């Protein structure tokens, strides 16, 4: 009887241990499987299974600054808006204040198109002869902080004379765009090689409602999600669909940007983030300058 009881205890112990070992093995297998690279076929399902969050945030960016070919530039905006409406998506147009004024005067329908907040966000950027732009700073050289702030505020509230580089006695700049749009352009590309100039320009635009800046520098315009500078968000971007490995823009090659997008996404999911569990947010910025608009 005693022997039978001992045998039963031994049997039960082995049975429980076997189940426990089995669970550990299965668990180990599952976690190992999550770390294995996924195949093309598995990918979409795996992404949906492991993460409820969006994998890629994508922005269609169009820089608009061709005041020389105003009609062609207006046509590009019309065409881009047609495409965005067709697929019910939104694009972001970075305009210089010069372009805003010129459209307002010559193509008011473009202003109305850009005001369609369902399909467009208007942001701001700076090009020559604006005195913040590198190489065009002669009008603001040697000024102290207060003087610099005062003169840059004039530029952001007045029209820029393209021939002299001076501001005119006419409303313009970031302030006019904000007034016409009914919202402050949320993001701005401020390219300058002088930190004190960028800092002052950002201070002024921030007071007017700017929330985000685009990084310009050696590393291009890439930035992490949540990075800040001058008290503003830096536009986040893990990659751009812009140039190929030889530095050629996709529109100057026969490459398809849709293919480049797939390549970039798979690079990020398979190399930068080998386990999908780590993927939270990727941001992609697409720049398109079809005819340098």
């Amino acid at each position, binding site marked *: 009887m005693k022997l039978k009881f001992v045998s039963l205890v031994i049997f039960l112990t082995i049975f429980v241990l076997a189940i426990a070992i089995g669970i550990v093995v299965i668990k180990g297998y599952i976690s190992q499987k999550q770390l294995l690279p996924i195949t093309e076929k598995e990918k*979409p399902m795996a*992404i*949906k299974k492991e993460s409820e969050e*969006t*994998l*890629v*945030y*994508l*922005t*269609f960016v169009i820089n608009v*600054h*061709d*005041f*020389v*070919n105003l009609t062609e530039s207006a046509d590009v905006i019309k*065409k881009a808006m047609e*495409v*965005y409406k*067709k*697929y*019910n*998506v*939104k*694009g*972001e147009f970075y305009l210089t204040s010069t372009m805003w004024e010129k459209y307002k005067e010559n193509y008011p329908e473009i202003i109305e198109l850009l005001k369609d907040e369902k399909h*467009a*966000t208007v*942001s701001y950027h700076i*090009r*020559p*002869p604006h005195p913040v732009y590198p*190489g*065009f700073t*002669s009008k603001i050289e040697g000024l102290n902080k207060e003087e610099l702030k005062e003169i840059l505020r004039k530029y952001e509230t007045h029209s820029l004379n*393209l*021939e*002299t*580089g001076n501001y005119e006695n006419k409303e313009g700049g970031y302030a006019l765009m904000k007034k016409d749009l009914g919202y402050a352009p*949320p*993001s701005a590309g401020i390219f300058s090689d002088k930190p004190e100039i960028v800092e002052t320009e950002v201070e002024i635009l921030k007071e007017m409602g700017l*929330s*985000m800046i685009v990084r310009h520098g050696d590393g291009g315009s890439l930035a992490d*999600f*949540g990075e800040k500078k001058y008290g503003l*968000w830096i*536009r*986040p971007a893990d990659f751009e*669909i812009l140039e190929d490995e030889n530095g050629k823009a*996709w*529109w*100057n090659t026969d490459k*398809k*940007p*849709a293919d480049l*997008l797939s390549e970039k996404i798979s690079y990020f999911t398979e190399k930068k983030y080998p386990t999908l569990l780590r993927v939270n947010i990727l*941001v992609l910025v*697409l720049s398109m300058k*079809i*005819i*340098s608009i």
Partner: protein
Amino acid sequence: MKDTPWALIYYTDIKKTTPKSPPYDLTQKLPPSFQRSENEINDIWLRYEELVKKASEDPNIEIVTSKELIEKLEKK
């Protein structure tokens, strides 16, 4: 245009290496050879539209502008 259309107004060269001084001559344009043909432009648009279509149909892609990004950053 195959390059920055105002390059020669503000710079001495198309590569934009040397800025000019004011007054700037607004009549300075790029040579006609920099103009894209209709076919080239149409081809670029076709490829661009293909991308927009693909992105809009992908359930793992959310198309945003900086407006939405700022909202997401503020909530974070």
